[in-house]
């Protein structure tokens, strides 16, 4: 019985690590998360807004309410970018294997590196204040 419970996760891990569909999903998910997150940050597109002062959640972008604390968009940006990236990653697994294999693997580190100066620029308010 103990053999069954210990081998199952290992087998699942091994099948995931050899799956070409998971490879395609993971590449597209990683790249898309970086791109969508930068777009969400610069465009102000949170899936929801959290008001920590009142512990209230509003769908989409919402301004801070006067005398009730700040509004937080970071959680909403994560939700937008991760959900969007998961959808794109899922769609990418439907591509024929030959096409999926042509997605350059270098994008998984190149896009996040390129996102850094863009994010620094998006925070210009803090550097120039």
């Amino acid at each position: 019985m103990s053999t069954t419970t210990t081998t199952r996760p290992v087998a699942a891990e091994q099948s995931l690590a050899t799956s070409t569909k998971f490879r395609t999903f993971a590449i597209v998910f990683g790249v898309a998360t970086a791109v969508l997150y930068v777009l969400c940050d610069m465009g102000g597109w949170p899936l929801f807004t959290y008001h920590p002062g009142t512990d209230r959640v509003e769908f989409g972008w919402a301004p801070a309410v006067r005398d009730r604390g700040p509004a937080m968009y970071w959680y909403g940006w994560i939700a937008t970018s991760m959900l969007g990236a998961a959808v794109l990653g899922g769609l990418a697994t439907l591509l024929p294997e030959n096409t999926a294999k042509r997605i350059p693997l270098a994008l998984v580190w190149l896009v996040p590196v390129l996102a850094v100066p863009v994010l620094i620029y998006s925070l210009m308010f803090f550097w120039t204040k």
Partner: protein
Amino acid sequence: MMDFVFDYISVNAFWTILLIVHGLLAVALLGALTHQAMSVLMPVRQAAIASGFVTRFRSVQGAGYATAICVLWVVTFIFGAWIYTKYRIYVRIPLEQQEFWRTQGVFELKEHLVTIGLGLLPIYWYLWKNARNQEYDSARKWLTVYLAAVCWYGFLVGHIVNNVRGFGS
């Protein structure tokens, strides 16, 4: 949901404990990622294993760290995201009042970079689980170095912000 905890410890102590746990998890993550990044940047030849601290530091089997690093990144991220609600009110607002703009800026950048890092974990894990595939060597190397750099940046910035105004200050 966590209100029962406050029967035993103060609210301030609770958030300070969470911050310390977040910091300790970050130390573990930083150590593992630094070992792994060194192992891909300066791989050790079999013959050189016996010599010196630096050589031993970079001679780890990087693949064995991958799953632990993913788990540590996620758990550290969850703790950070939990603490962030209190940071926004009790730390950031005083920082704004004292006009520590650059301190806030570097912290905002940390939040952005660790989120992008979170999205990279599936492909990072996949590349390390296929560590014998030479086709993935370059991507695995630079992705690991990128995540290690983000982790170092996040760790140092977290320290700076805590020094400027930590919980309970």
